[in-house]
């Protein structure tokens, strides 16, 4: 059963040079108790997609079309009140580079209890006890419930954010590069925690990262995004072992494995295009070593090949 279905979603940022098509007609779905990885270089529209799922696109961004069906309802048609009831309870998010995501003048315990108090009929004392439990769950002792964010390390703050995001048993949790910007050991520990929670709490999640090795052990399925478009979509093992799209291949080879496997790294030449005036045809063609005239003029449709969904003229 699909908890989330994104259909033909378009999100544009209205810049003075015209709309930047940060997310341009993407579709994918997430099944209950599954984790989907969303990967791609910086600036490919991953965060924009995440924010759209919470109907939380900020100015000058605008949802230009599509549907986001969550548990049978289109999130894009909900009222402000319905969205408030949804956010923090049914859908939660752990954000990228969230070092300042906690309120500096409130204790971590209060910040967890607060979201429980908002969404459940529960008294303050019970909410506080739940907050302490959450802290234990994410590997911060409940004895530290009264600490302030500035007394916590970067890794602990992110654990705190995870505690907030899982406090109300959400149906769906978005993790937008939750380990980016932290040091490697902390990254490892957080990944272990996330994996552990996924199994224990049966989470349904969207896990965003810029490279495949991070999502490889956490996700069931992976969506590869480039310049606002989906390039490839497949189950994680198949995608890792047998990538079809040239961009997916390049991406796999451009990042070191977080497990420390030795591999020759090859960075992708060039950088993602500006999305106000994206390249014609396939958006990846200026950086693709296999590009043909067809790639330069006609946008590839998504096709099913070997169990993958892939948008490429070359792949047979």
């Amino acid at each position: 059963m699909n908890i989330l279905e994104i259909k033909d979603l378009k999100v544009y940022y209205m810049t003075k040079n015209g709309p930047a098509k940060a997310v341009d007609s993407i579709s994918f779905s997430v099944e209950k108790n599954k984790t989907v990885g969303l990967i791609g270089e910086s600036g490919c529209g991953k965060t924009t997609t995440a924010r759209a799922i919470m109907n939380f696109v900020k100015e000058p961004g605008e949802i230009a079309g599509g549907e986001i069906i969550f548990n049978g309802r289109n999130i894009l048609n909900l009222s402000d009140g319905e969205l408030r009831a949804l956010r923090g309870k049914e859908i939660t998010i752990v954000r990228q580079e969230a070092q300042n995501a906690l309120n500096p003048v409130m204790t971590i315990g209060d910040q967890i209890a607060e979201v429980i108090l908002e969404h459940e009929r529960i008294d303050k004392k019970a909410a506080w006890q739940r907050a302490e439990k959450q802290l234990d769950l994410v590997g911060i002792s409940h004895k530290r419930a009264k600490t302030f964010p500035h007394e916590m390390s970067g890794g602990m703050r992110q654990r705190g954010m995870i505690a907030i995001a899982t406090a109300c048993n959400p149906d769906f949790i978005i993790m937008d590069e939750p380990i980016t910007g932290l040091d490697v050991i902390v990254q490892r520990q957080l990944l272990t925690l996330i994996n552990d929670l996924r199994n224990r709490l049966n989470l349904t999640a969207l896990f965003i990262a810029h490279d495949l090795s991070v999502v490889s052990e956490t996700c069931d399925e992976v969506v590869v995004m480039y310049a606002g478009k989906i390039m490839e979509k497949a189950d994680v093992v198949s995608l890792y072992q047998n990538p079809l799209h040239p961009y997916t291949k390049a991406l796999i080879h451009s990042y070191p494995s977080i497990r420390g496997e030795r591999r020759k790294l090859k960075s992708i030449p060039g950088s993602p295009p500006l999305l106000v005036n994206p390249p014609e045809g396939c958006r990846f063609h200026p950086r693709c070593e296999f590009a043909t005239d067809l790639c330069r003029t006609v946008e590839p449709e998504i096709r099913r090949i070997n169990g993958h969904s892939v948008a490429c003229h070359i792949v047979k």
Partner: protein
Amino acid sequence: MKTLQFILKKLTGALITIVAIAIANFAIFRIAPGDPIRMMFKDPRVSTEQLQAMRVKFGLDKSIGGQFIDYVKQLLHGNLGFSFWQKRPVADVIGDRIGQTLILVVTALVIATTLGIILGAISGWRNGSKTDRTILSLSLVLYSIPTFAMGILLLLVFGFILLLFPLGGITTPASGFTGFMYLKDVLWHMVLPAFSIVLWYVGEYILLTRSSMVEVMDQDYIVTARSKGLRESVILRKHALRNALLPVVTLSGVNFAFAIAGVIEAETVFSWPGIGRLTYDAVMKRDYPLLQGIFLLFAVSVVVANFIVDLIYTRIDPRIKTGAAHE
């Protein structure tokens, strides 16, 4: 006990500042031109011997060092000197006036801060809206009008033309009011001078709170609060305002010094018998000991105000104890 340490540090700082002020205060008045004894006895018939006798009486015949030792000794006994003009101890002169100033200043500042914080918070919260623009232009206008100009304007409109409020003083002369009627009469007289201070001050508080609020609204933790599905009122109070008020509190300590300037202007325009008016008179009469006493009072009150602000800060900003704030 990081908090205690912090308070002790601030207290030491405050005490050192007060000592420095006392020394500076002594020095300034010795350097200032003009012979105070001559000012006191303008009558040319007063003989040089009589002037000399007065100098001896006030200790002005001694060397600078001797005068300083006298000054410190007297200060330690709570003796601020003897007013040339009023012919009685400076402490008494100030004591008679301080109540009137306190009631005026405290009322004005409480109204101004409350109003300023509320309007500034609304303005910053609704950044860019019509409400914001209205509040912002209003506060810019208010902020740019000096207290004395505002005072004269209020006096003209509400005193002379509309006849709504008295023109000056603190009570209706010879009214014989007592108890509640007296209090009402004082408040009645206080409206215009208080508002001339409030209107100037409120502009500053609005601007301050607004800019702080606008900055806070861009912070990550506001996004977090929104993504938690909290009600707007909760986000405003618990997340935005609590953080936005930190710089406002700091500045209210600094602003206290400017409040004094505003009070001198307002009291002078409205003949309010407080310390501000007294300052003006003491300058006019060249009453050095009195001025010296008033300056010391002003300086010490600014130091005390800042110390109180530091204390409040330890309560509202948890980062202060470890020095993580103000990086």
